[in-house]
């Protein structure tokens, strides 16, 4: 016999029992959650090759018996920490690359100090990236280097590649990289030049604080943080869910400040004038036209990316001058494209199949 809403009483009883058990588990695990430390992330063995201010160059220790000739340098977004690509064993993009035989380096960032507020876009594109590439060449003994850029790291890699089209960059891989900043509609509205005085902000406080960066990301989906906390409470009996939640939450809230002058240039040149898209971008007085890029390029975009919408990223492949170019759209969002269960199934194998033949 079914109840008026169509439920079988026996199954209802089982369901209620399960929910009572979960309620008890929630209380126990809830206390554990509050008392325990955040998970340890980014633990794949690595050596620090060089640090200079905000810039850090890591080399991950190879684990394959034989590696590809061309080393890989990952350029991380300047707003976030690189350990999103190295969460925990079994869920680490870095570990995946190492197991597949790549020699992996990463250009990662620490918070710029107050006195680094004068770092400009050209310091990142014309100094930090070339310096790291030189050190990768020196350390690996190889002249060619593949660059992988995540989000704004992809923009930096594109700018570098368009200023130095003759090498040593051999391949370029971009993850969710915007080039049409006028299509990042909410960010554009937040920084509307009629109301947003970027000069006053930078001149007053120097580096842009991480809270401001984090708020602007969270404002894109204002209900999601509260809902994710409700979902955490519902699933707190589930160790796997809690582990994953804590990893991603720790990373998402570990936002970096941005150097003041760098932020000023991004706001004016990219957000306001959309120069990268228009082909009028220059860095340190040097034209940075992405049509000059001729190396093989792969651009991976996410179907449900709310930070870099597809409209902001879709023209990249059409605008680069490479003959060997490919865009791949995968299910997922801005973060789940590169990390987590979806990435393991989708992006990482795709990247390996694309890059292997181009790394010999």
């Amino acid at each position, binding site marked *: 016999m079914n109840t008026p809403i169509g439920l079988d009483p026996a199954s209802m009883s089982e369901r209620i029992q399960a929910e009572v058990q979960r309620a008890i588990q929630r209380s126990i695990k809830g206390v554990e959650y509050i008392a325990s430390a955040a998970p340890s992330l980014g633990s794949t063995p690595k050596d620090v090759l060089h640090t200079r201010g905000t810039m850090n160059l890591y080399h991950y220790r190879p684990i394959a018996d034989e590696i590809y000739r061309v080393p890989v340098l990952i350029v991380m977004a300047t707003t976030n920490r690189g350990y999103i690509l190295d969460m925990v064993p079994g869920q680490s993009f870095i570990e995946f690359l190492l197991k597949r035989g790549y020699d992996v380096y990463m250009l990662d960032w620490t918070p710029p100090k107050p006195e680094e507020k004068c770092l400009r876009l050209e310091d990142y594109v014309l100094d930090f990236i070339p310096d790291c590439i030189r050190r990768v060449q020196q350390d690996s003994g190889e002249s060619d280097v593949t660059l992988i850029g995540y989000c704004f790291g992809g923009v930096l890699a594109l700018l570098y590649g368009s200023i130095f089209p003759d090498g040593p960059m051999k391949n370029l891989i971009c993850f969710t990289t915007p080039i049409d900043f006028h299509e990042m509609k*909410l960010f554009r509205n937040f920084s509307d030049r009629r109301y947003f*005085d970027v000069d006053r902000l930078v001149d*007053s*406080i120097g580096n842009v604080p991480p809270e401001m960066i984090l708020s602007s990301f969270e404002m894109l989906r204002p*209900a999601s943080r509260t*809902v994710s906390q409700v979902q955490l409470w519902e699933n707190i009996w589930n160790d796997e869910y809690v582990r994953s939640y804590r990893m991603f939450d720790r990373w998402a809230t570990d936002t970096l400040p941005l150097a003041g002058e760098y932020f000023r240039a991004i706001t004016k040149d990219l957000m306001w004038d959309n120069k990268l898209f228009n082909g009028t971008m220059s860095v340190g007085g040097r034209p940075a036209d992405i049509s000059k890029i001729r190396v093989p390029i792969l651009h991976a975009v996410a179907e449900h990316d709310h930070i870099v919408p597809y409209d902001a990223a879709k023209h990249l492949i059409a605008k680069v001058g490479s003959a060997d170019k490919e865009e791949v759209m995968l299910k997922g969002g801005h973060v789940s494209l590169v990390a987590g269960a979806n990435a393991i199934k989708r992006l990482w194998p795709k990247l390996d199949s694309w890059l292997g033949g181009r790394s010999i």
Partner: protein
Amino acid sequence: MADKGNDPVAIWQAMIGEMEKGFNSFANQAMASPEFSKVVNQVGGATVSAQKQFGELMEKYLVSMNLPSRAQMVGMAERLQSIEGQLDEIKAMLGQMQRASGGADSGSAGAPRPPRTRRPPSSGKEQK
């Protein structure tokens, strides 16, 4: 077990999901307006001014307490960083010298590095 259509927990979760989507969509529409940008930036501007004045006040307070100045601390940090940088250079040079003298190809950790002879699986060798 009850099917998903009748499961109160599943119904609750679906409802939360729909509420989230609805609220995000509504908020995104509101935030896309020029009025929103104007208000947010006015409030933000006032906060920045207050933050700047507070910072200046703190600086004066620290000086009056005879604590090391910010410039002195930065100077020390820069010297340490420069020493670290020189150590990195020395390590890299030692690695190069070791390689040049015919020793094992060693990485920055001193461990031997694997040969750079890997081929993708399709070109004849099996993926490891």
